[in-house]
C-alpha cells in the first residue's frame, strides 16, 4: 500500500512539473510581443517598452525566467498581475471560494438527478418513461450551457421575476440558476451512465442465483444489482467534480459571477503572465489532488488496483 502511495504521489508531482513548464512555454510561443499585448493601443516610446521588458524580466533567457518563477513559487510568491498590479495569490484566494461553492452545489444537483433518473429509466427499461426521460437526458447533454443559462435567466428572472439573474456572488439565491446551468449536462450524462451500468448488471447470472435461492425481487434489484452497478458511478462522480470546475468558466461569465475560471480566461486574453501561471498552476494542483485521492480510495476499496 505504501509503495503504491509513493508511486502515485511521484506521478502527480511529475504531472505538476509538466504543467508548469507547458504553461510557461505556451505563453512564450504565442506570436506577438507580450509588452505590446499588455499595453493594447497605448502610445508609448521604445524606451518605455524596453524599461517594461527589463522590469518584467522578459529580457532574460527563457530557462532563467522559468527558474526564477519556480523559485518564487516555493517562497509562496506568485507575483503580481501585470495588468492590475494585484497580488496573484490574493486574487486566487478571493475568487476560488465562489467556484468551489458553485461546483459543489452543481455536483449535488447532478449526482442526485443523475442517479435518480438513471435508476428510473433502467428499471423501467423500454417503457414510455424510459423513452421520454432518454430524450430529456440526451437533450441535456446536447444543449450548450451558455444557451441554457440564458433561457433560465429569461424565464426565471425576466419573465417570472423569481430568481436574480446577476445576484452578487455572495448571495445564496444567486447560486440556483448558475448551479442548474452547470449541472444539466453532467446530470444527463450521469443518468445515461447509471442506466447502462444497471442494464449491464441485469445480464449477469449472479442475480438468477439470488432469485433461485428465493431472495425477494426488491432485494435483488436494490441490494445486488444497484450496488454492483454503482462502482463505476462513484468514480464518475469524483471525475465530475473536475469537469464541473472546468465548465464553471462559461457559467461564471454568463452570470457574471466571481470565479477562478474567469480569472484565468481574462488573464490569458490579457497575456498577464503571472496571473495565467498562478491560476493554471492552482487549477492543476486541484485537479491532480482530486485524481490522486480518487485513485487512493479506489486502491483501498478494490485490491486489484494496487496489485497491478
Amino acid at each position, binding site marked *: 500500500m505504501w509503495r503504491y502511495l509513493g508511486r502515485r504521489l511521484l506521478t502527480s508531482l511529475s504531472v505538476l512539473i509538466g504543467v508548469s513548464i507547458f504553461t510557461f512555454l505556451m505563453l512564450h510561443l504565442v506570436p506577438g510581443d507580450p509588452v505590446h499585448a499588455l499595453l493594447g*493601443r497605448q*502610445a508609448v516610446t521604445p524606451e518605455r517598452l524596453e524599461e517594461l521588458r527589463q522590469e518584467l524580466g522578459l529580457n532574460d533567457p527563457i530557462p532563467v525566467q522559468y527558474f526564477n518563477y519556480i523559485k518564487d513559487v516555493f517562497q509562496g510568491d506568485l507575483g503580481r498581475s501585470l*495588468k492590475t498590479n494585484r497580488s496573484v495569490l490574493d486574487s486566487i484566494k478571493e475568487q476560488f471560494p465562489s467556484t468551489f461553492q458553485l461546483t459543489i452545489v452543481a455536483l449535488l444537483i447532478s449526482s442526485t438527478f443523475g442517479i435518480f433518473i438513471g435508476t428510473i429509466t433502467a428499471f423501467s427499461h423500454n417503457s414510455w418513461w424510459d423513452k421520454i426521460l432518454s430524450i430529456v437526458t440526451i437533450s441535456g447533454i446536447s444543449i450548450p450551457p451558455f444557451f441554457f443559462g440564458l433561457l433560465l*435567466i429569461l424565464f426565471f428572472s425576466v419573465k417570472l421575476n423569481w430568481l436574480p439573474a446577476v445576484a452578487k456572488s455572495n448571495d445564496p439565491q444567486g447560486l440556483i440558476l448558475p448551479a442548474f446551468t452547470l449541472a444539466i449536462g453532467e446530470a444527463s450524462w450521469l443518468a445515461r451512465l447509471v442506466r447502462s451500468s444497471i442494464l449491464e448488471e441485469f445480464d449477469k447470472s449472479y442475480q438468477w442465483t439470488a432469485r433461485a435461492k428465493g431472495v425477494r425481487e426488491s432485494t435483488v434489484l436494490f441490494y445486488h444489482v444497484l450496488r454492483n452497478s454503482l462502482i463505476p458511478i462513484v468514480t464518475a462522480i469524483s471525475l465530475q467534480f473536475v469537469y464541473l470546475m472546468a465548465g464553471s468558466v462559461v457559467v461564471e461569465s454568463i452570470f457574471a459571477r466571481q470565479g477562478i475560471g474567469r480569472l484565468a480566461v481574462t488573464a490569458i486574453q490579457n497575456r498577464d503572465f503571472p496571473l495565467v501561471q498562478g491560476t493554471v498552476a492552482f487549477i492543476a494542483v486541484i485537479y491532480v489532488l482530486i485524481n490522486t485521492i480518487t485513485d487512493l480510495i479506489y486502491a483501498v476499496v478494490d485490491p486489484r488496483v494496487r496489485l497491478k
Partner: protein
Amino acid sequence: MKNRKHLVLILSLLAVLFGTIAVPAQSETNALTIGISVEPISLDPAGGLYIPEQFLIQQIFDPLIAADPALNLHPALAKSWEVNEMGSEFSFHLRDDVKFHDGTKFTGEAVKISFDRAAKGSTVAAAAPTIFYDYIETQVVDDTTVIVKFSSPHATFLQDLTRPWLMISSPAAIEKHGEDYGQYPVGTGPFILKEWAAQDHITLTKNPDYNWASDFYVHTGPALLDEITFRFLPEQATRIAAFQSGEASIVQDPSYLEASQMTADPSVQLFTFVNPGMTSHQMINVEKAPTDDINVRKALIYAVDQETISQVAFYGLQPAAHNVISPSTWGYNEEAAKLYSYNPEKAAALLEESGWIDSNGDGIREKDGVNLHIEYPALPAYEEAFMELLASYLQKAGFEVNITKLDDAGISEFGFASKHNILNMGWVSRDPAVLSYVYDSENIEGGNQSSYTRFRSDRLDEILRTAPQTIDEEARKALYQEAQMIIMENAIALPIHCYGSVYIADANITGFRFDPEGFPYLYEVSIAAE
C-alpha cells in the same frame, strides 16, 4: 402511517426550498445599481487607463479644475489659477476647507504627490504619463498655493486637469496602501469606495461631508444618491437581462438592437453621446501597393457607405464618421468632412484612371496581371460589427480583400511590419492633440510605432508638434483644422463611425446628463419617487 410521515417530510422540504426562492429583495429607494461592461483595473488616478477607470475615478475624486458639458472651465479644488506668458507655468490657489475621505486635510502637498505619481504612472498601461510628457515639477509655495512647471508651453494642461488621470489622491492613503492603493482609492469626491469584490461589483457610498461641488452642478452639498453599486456584467445578453429583471436601473453599452427597440418603451430612457477624439477609422498605408497610389486610396473612401454601416452594424447608435476626428471634438473641421461621400461611380472612375480594370470578369480588378488586393488585419474586439460589411463594400468596388483576425499584439506587429493596407484606429479624447500619437511621422519607426499610414509630411508633422505648445486658442484651432484637411486630402484615413456612449435607464432615473467625454455626472443623478 409511515407513508404519511414521508409526505410531511417532502412537503416541509419543498416549503424550505420555495422559501429561499422568494422574490428578490427590492432595492432601497436611494441605492442605485449600474451594470457596466468592463471592470476597472485600478482606481488610482495615476494608474487608470480607459473607460471603466474613468467612470469610477470621477465619482471618488475631484479635479483642481472642472469642465462643464460645454468644456467651460470652473473652479473645483482650485479656487483660481494663473498661467505665465509662455504657457509653461501654472499657479493654483487651492481651497482650504476640503477633507479627504480618510479625514486628512487637502493641501498643496497632496497636489504635488498626486502629480509626481501621475508623471510616472502606477500601472504599466496608465494614461497619466502620456499627458505629463514634459512635466518638470510641482512647487508647493504654501498649503494653498502650488506652481506646476513644464519644460515647454503646455496648451492642453487646463483641460487635462479636468480629466480623471490628474485628480487628487490622499497622500496618507497612498502611504498606507502602497502598491495596493489602486484597490483602496481615497479622494475628496462626492462618493466613497465602500467595497470592491473583483469580478463582481464595486460599491460606493455618499460622502456626507461633501460641500465643495463646482458651481456648474445643479445642486450643492452631498450627492443625492446614498449608495451606488457598479455591477460588472461582461456579457451583453446578461446586461440586458439584468435591466429587464430590475436588478440594474442603469446599463452601459446595452446591445444596440435591444436598445434601439427600447426607444419606443416609455418605461425606458435611452441616452446617447458622440464621443470626442479620433473616430474609428482605417489608417491607409501609403507605402504598400496598391494603396501607395492616391487614386486607389480615394477610391477606398468613395466605395464605403458609412451611413449604411452605422445603421446595419450599430442600429444608428454609433453615428457614421466622415472625418478623422468626431464632430464633438474641439476644433472639428466641417470642410474636411465634406470631401468625400459614398459614390461607387467615382470610386470606379478613379480606379480605372489608375489602370485597375476587371478584364477577366471575376469581379476583381487587375493591372499587369496583379489583383487589386487589400490586406486588412482586424481586431474583432473593435471591428466585429462592421469588418465584413466594410470588406463587402470594397469587394463591390472591385477590390480583393483579405481579412486576418488578430489580437492587439498581433495587430501592432502586423502594422509595424507594414504588411497591411488598412488598419483600424480610434482614440477617445477631449482634444485633437491626440492626432499626433498616430499621424506624426516620428511614430513610424520610432516613438510609439503606431503611425500605420507611414505618411510623411513636413507640414503635418510641424502642425502636430507646434499645436500642443500654441497657447492662443484660435491659432491652435486653425492648426488642427489644417491637419484634418491634410489627412483627408491625402486620403490616408477611411472614416467608419464615431464612438458613442449608450446608456439605458429606468424611467424614474432623473438628473442624467453627460460630461464632455460621455459619462453621466452621478453626483446629479437621483431616483424619483414612484
